[in-house]
């Protein structure tokens, strides 16, 4: 049984971490280099140097070895991917593996070559079909009272449980050492799996593990968006009458009703209250942004301009603004407005801008942009982020092929996106990076598109 306790400290700490991110991005934005822009999320702060010991086997059960390997690998990669740690290479760790606090000699870990400030360790065993895992976090510089965290986990023995336990323990460590920002190791990513001529909605863990199908409609399903409480996925699917918004309940494990309408209905977006959905509908002829409740009822039109209006996304912090893509002046541009359709502001000054995602703190927009769009134009479609208050932007991807569909992680420090190195649609795969463009890595092989990160 995991004993997870969140303290009220979180609210204050959360604000602190947002402030740090804001400062970092402001730093980055002032650089505003369009080529060769490189920085660390850690610029200006010292990353905590943490040693992650392989856990000590807690039993001689034959399952222990393989599950412990899964656990060790997952915990290490969760902490390495968090972007706030300086991880001690495993080759520098002391020989003796401590399993319990009594076996832990922190001085061995705080001196060179490990020179760790923090040590994560513990024991992991399988007994009677159950995983029993004890995880500890010690402050290596505090010889008198080194223990920062002690957690016990008891779950059914499976590869998935071993991964989930590692995710939960990693989130606890990140929460303690990041100044209170919630870890994202338990978050999910929904996406489109390209399967021959069909496209189905799939889901995976944030690290690309546990990829599995959600829908099996045998059609073309696009633009999955997970609800703020992670209970439902809204998406658009091609039926006899064209594309319509569909809704899948992750709790019931089946499709649920979403009242349709005429015309093409695509690109749903959840309001942070979980009650409203904005989407593009051409029921009145021209594709416009409409808002309805989560069952498709009470639909009302928000925009009214000739030309395509698509891909809305709510300001997740306030719920009172919508960013979207409009072709009212020709090539698609990025706009924001209030949810009643007033206060329209154009954000991009040209090129071809699409696929906008609003950062959790409400301050930034991530989007795909081809700044010199047109046949024969130089450059390509890359991921950018823009600070809304100043309209200043930075480019996060360079020369890596076509990029599209950025989506922010719940902590606002990572961005997941789709990338095709050779530009071919079938070669789309899902990548992740820190919000400053560093630590890019692929989460899936080719044949995956349109990722959307869960809200928590």
């Amino acid at each position, binding site marked *: 049984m995991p004993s997870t306790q969140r303290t009220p400290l979180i609210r204050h700490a959360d604000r602190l971490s947002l402030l740090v991110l804001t400062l970092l991005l402001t730093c980055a934005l002032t650089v505003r280099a369009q080529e060769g822009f490189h920085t660390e999320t850690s610029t200006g702060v010292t990353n905590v140097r943490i040693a992650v010991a392989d856990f000590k086997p807690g039993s001689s059960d034959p399952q222990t070895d393989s599950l412990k390997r899964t656990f060790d690998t997952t915990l290490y990669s969760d902490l390495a991917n968090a972007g706030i740690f300086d991880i001690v290479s495993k080759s520098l760790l002391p020989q003796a593996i401590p399993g319990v606090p009594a076996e832990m000699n922190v001085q061995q870990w705080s001196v060179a070559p490990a020179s760790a400030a923090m040590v994560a360790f513990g024991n992991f065993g399988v007994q009677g079909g159950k995983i029993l895992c004890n995880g500890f976090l010690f402050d290596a510089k505090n010889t008198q009272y080194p223990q920062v965290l002690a957690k016990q986990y008891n779950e059914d023995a499976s590869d998935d449980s071993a991964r989930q336990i590692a995710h939960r323990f990693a989130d606890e460590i990140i929460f303690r050492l990041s100044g209170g920002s919630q870890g994202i190791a338990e978050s999910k990513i929904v996406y489109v799996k390209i399967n021959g001529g069909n496209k189905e909605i799939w889901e995976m863990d944030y690290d690309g593990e546990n990829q599995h199908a959600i829908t099996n409609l045998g059609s073309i399903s696009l633009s999955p968006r997970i609800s703020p409480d992670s209970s439902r996925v809204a998406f658009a699917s*091609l039926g006899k009458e*064209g594309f319509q918004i569909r809704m899948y309940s992750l709790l019931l494990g089946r*499709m649920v009703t979403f009242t349709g309408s005429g015309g*093409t209905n695509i690109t749903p977006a959840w309001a942070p209250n979980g009650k409203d959905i904005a989407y593009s509908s051409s029921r009145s002829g*021209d594709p416009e942004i409409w808002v309805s409740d989560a069952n498709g009822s009470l639909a009302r039109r928000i925009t009214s301009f000739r030309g395509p209006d698509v*891909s809305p996304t709510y300001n997740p912090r306030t719920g009172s603004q919508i960013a979207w893509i409009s072709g009212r002046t020709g090539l698609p541009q990025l706009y924001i407005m209030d949810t009643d359709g007033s206060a329209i502001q154009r954000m991009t000054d040209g090129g071809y801008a*699409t*696929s906008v995602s609003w950062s959790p703190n409400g301050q930034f927009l991530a989007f795909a942009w081809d700044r010199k769009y047109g046949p024969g134009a130089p450059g390509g479609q890359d991921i950018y982020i823009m600070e809304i208050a100043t309209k200043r932007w930075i480019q996060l991807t360079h020369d890596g092929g076509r990029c599209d569909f950025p989506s922010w992680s719940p902590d606002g420090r990572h961005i997941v996106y789709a990338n095709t190195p050779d530009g071919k649609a079938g070669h789309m795969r899902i990548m992740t990076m820190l919000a400053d463009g560093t630590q890019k890595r692929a989460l899936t092989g080719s044949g995956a598109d349109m990722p959307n990160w869960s809200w928590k």
Partner: protein
Amino acid sequence: MSSMQNRLTRTLALASTLAVLGAVTGCHKQASGVNPSSLGPTPTAAAPAPTASITADPLAIDQGQSVVLNWRTQNATSAAIEGIGEVNVNGTQTVSPANSTNFKLTAKGDGGTIEANVRVTVRVPVAPSAPPPENVDMGSEAAFHQNVQDIFFDYDSFDLRPDAATSTAKAAEYLTAHPSIKVVIGGYCDDRGSAEYNLALGENRANAARTALISAGVASNRLRVISYGKEKQFCTEEEESCWQQNRRAQFSLDR
């Protein structure tokens, strides 16, 4: 109806109870001889008629999906659903009908038999590119495509070009001469740019073609619009001639 029956039942029960009371208080000698059947209405004389209701959630599904039937009866001793067979008098069941089905619930009780219905609509997917079967009333497929030709668009545009105006005029003429023909207009885009934006752009393209045909006198209820964006590519070469093929409004017979 059932509340009226209840009231009737209650009234009868009250009346008979009073009658028994009267008999008991009036005739002390017979106090031990109460006939149990006089305590209430006899079942055969006034058995309440059964009631039945059945619902399905959702009412419309795609082929292969399932639907939950939920039925309730009162005063029924047995119940059956056509196609499923004998069922509990109250219950739920998940079914996956292959075609649109009328689920008929029949409830039998001492008071009679009653039926309730719910219709589940099954949407059978139809491959949009599959040629519809021949139908003489609509003219031949070949004649249709000869006269109603796809129209092509400039890059990122949904404005009709001069060549498109010529083909829509010819198409309108053919459609006016064959009033039984209905048309699906598919909107398509080349594979550059964003999938989401292209779906909206494809809708605008198909709508532009639809508007042109309506202006030329074709009734709007004969024209249906579906945008495929860049999801159904005609060709996949990365060159202008292929991109141009994909940037089109395509006409098909809607049967």
